């Protein structure tokens, strides 16, 4: 178990403020944050390179805040992996065990175990410079885990691996970690990686953990427009609540559009609302509308379509608006083809009602 209590650390102009979280053994805590949010400062503080001005770091009920890095027994994989270029894979993996007075036979046994588990036995006598990105990752993982650390810290470790190998490595990482049952703290700005790996999440922005929660809570209910923007939810609009139209529904009027917003909490006055690009659906005229999408319908034109391997990002302009209300829409490739969509085409879209996110302005 790792517990971080009220951690504050200042590095030059940058300040990490009042960080609190607790990660249980076997839990994968994912800290998401844009560049410059303080991710590296946080991890270097946890590793023991920066002394915090305030707060405590506790491992298994034992405070380690003032312990030097070499005494913390943490497994660590940094962004550039830092595999020692002068040592073969074998030397890299057993490096940590040679600092303690571990018997040679024990070192060899542990080395064999982890190498078999990660399928890198063939690489043991090679230098890191000759390995592929994915192989280097596995070696870094083996080195971090070989001596049963108290926790594993990962700082954007998959940055230099191609997309296909990344997904394989994610599976391998999760699989290997089930054997270890240690707390994992993974820091990244990559949304896809974050989405795939975390059990619980924290959002680090401007040196503070701005939101904590499950995958669902973070990705469906971002706590602020800034977080929503970081999650690349670009459809954020301001409006004013006009009236309550039914039990949980409100009419919200913005400068050029009107929305019906569902909310269990009472809404009033100026608000900001956000609709995620994946929550906007193309509506076919000849099909009956499902009740979840019938309140917010907009006619308009597809301005642009950007293709990626498995999805299409559309820019949609509602009729009668000047450009400040363009929607970004994400949809699967096959829908784009099936509905025969194209740039310039007039279509009708609907917003997925219950997923509309609101914040008081």
């Amino acid at each position, binding site marked *: 178990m790792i517990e971080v209590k009220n951690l504050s650390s200042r590095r030059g102009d940058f300040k990490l403020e009042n960080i609190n979280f607790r990660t249980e053994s076997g839990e994968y805590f994912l800290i998401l944050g844009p560049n410059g949010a303080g991710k590296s400062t946080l991890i270097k503080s946890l590793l023991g390179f920066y002394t915090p001005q305030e707060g405590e770091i506790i491992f298994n009920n034992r405070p380690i805040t003032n312990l030097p890095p070499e005494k913390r027994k943490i497994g*660590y994989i940094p962004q550039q992996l*830092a595999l020692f270029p002068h040592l073969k894979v074998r030397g890299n993996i057993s490096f940590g065990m040679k600092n303690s007075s571990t018997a040679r036979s024990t070192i060899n046994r542990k080395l064999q175990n982890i190498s078999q588990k990660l399928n890198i036995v063939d690489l043991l006598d090679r230098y890191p410079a000759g390995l592929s990105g994915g192989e280097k990752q596995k070696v870094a993982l083996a080195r971090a885990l070989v*001596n049963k650390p108290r926790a594993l810290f990962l700082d954007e470790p998959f940055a230099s691996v191609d997309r296909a190998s990344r997904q394989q490595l994610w599976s391998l990482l999760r699989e290997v970690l089930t054997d270890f049952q240690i707390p994992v703290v993974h820091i990244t700005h990559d949304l896809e990686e974050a989405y795939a790996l975390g059990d619980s999440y924290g959002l680090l922005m401007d040196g503070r953990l701005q939101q904590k929660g499950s995958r669902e809570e973070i990705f469906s209910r971002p706590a602020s427009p800034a977080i929503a923007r970081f999650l690349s939810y670009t459809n954020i609009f301001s409006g004013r609540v006009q009236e309550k139209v039914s039990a949980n529904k409100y009419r919200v009027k913005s400068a050029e559009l009107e929305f019906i917003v569902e909310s269990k909490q009472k809404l009033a006055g100026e608000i900001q609302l956000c609709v995620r690009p994946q929550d906007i659906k193309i509506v076919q005229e000849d099909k009956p509308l499902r009740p979840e999408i019938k309140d917010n319908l907009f006619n308009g034109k597809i301005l642009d379509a950007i293709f990626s391997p498995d999805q299409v990002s559309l820019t949609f302009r509602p009729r009668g608006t000047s450009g400040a209300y363009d929607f970004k829409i994400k949809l699967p490739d096959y829908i784009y083809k099936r509905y025969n969509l194209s740039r310039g085409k007039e279509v009708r879209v609907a917003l997925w009602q219950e997923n509309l996110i609101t914040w008081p302005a």
Partner: protein
Amino acid sequence: MGALKFPATTISCWIAVSNRLFNLVLIAVTGLLVLIFIFLIGSLAFEFFRTAPERSTDFARIFFALRLSLVTATTSAAVALVVGTPVAYFLSRHKFPGHKIIDTLLDLPVFLSPVALGAMLLLFFNTPAGRGIENLTGEIVFTVRGIIIAQFFVIIGLGIRLLKNTFEHIDQEYEQMSRVLGANKLQTFYRVVLPLAKKGMISTLLLTWARAIGEFGATMTLAGATPFKTTTLPVGIHLGFQAADIHRATIFILILIAISLLVLLSSRLLLEGENNDRS
């Protein structure tokens, strides 16, 4: 007034000519310099053979100077490496108030005339502190110890500068990783920093050694030029000329050239081999 217009073919032709001209200038300057070097060595060899019949070669003198030069340069370069390594590592890893001032002070021997440095040392060993040191170590001024000290102070600035550059090129992530893996600072230094700095340290040793073996000004000032006592190869050249023995001077010069070329060539080969190992 209408602008001059050239047809496209004329312009592309002109570009080709100017590119060729540029290359020609580079080749000409390089060739000229190489030619001058060859001419210098050639005229030295010519002088050596011209003066050979009229002079008998004084082998005792030559061997003494050669041995003294090799011993003193090796000692001073080794000491400079041992002293320079912790200093350079400290300066490359820590920033503190006054860092720049200390850095500049340690660079001084690189720029200062060796004669001035030798004179400073001579004056120092004339102070009570200097005499105190001499009482502890034995005589320094006008002795072989003096040669080593003079060479050490001439090369230490260069040594620190080269070593600092080496350490600064080692990513600190490696040291941090080593600490995380349980190594303390000392273990990290000899298990990670030294192996990664090996190449830079070898080339520092060779370059400072080469600088030490050619050292004249500070050696001459602190250790003097006593025959069969403090005559290194460069001092031998000086004495040869003073005694109007051109033949002896040319022998010393030829030996220095041979040693320098040998060291430079072997260091290049060594470092290239090192590169090929890892890539």
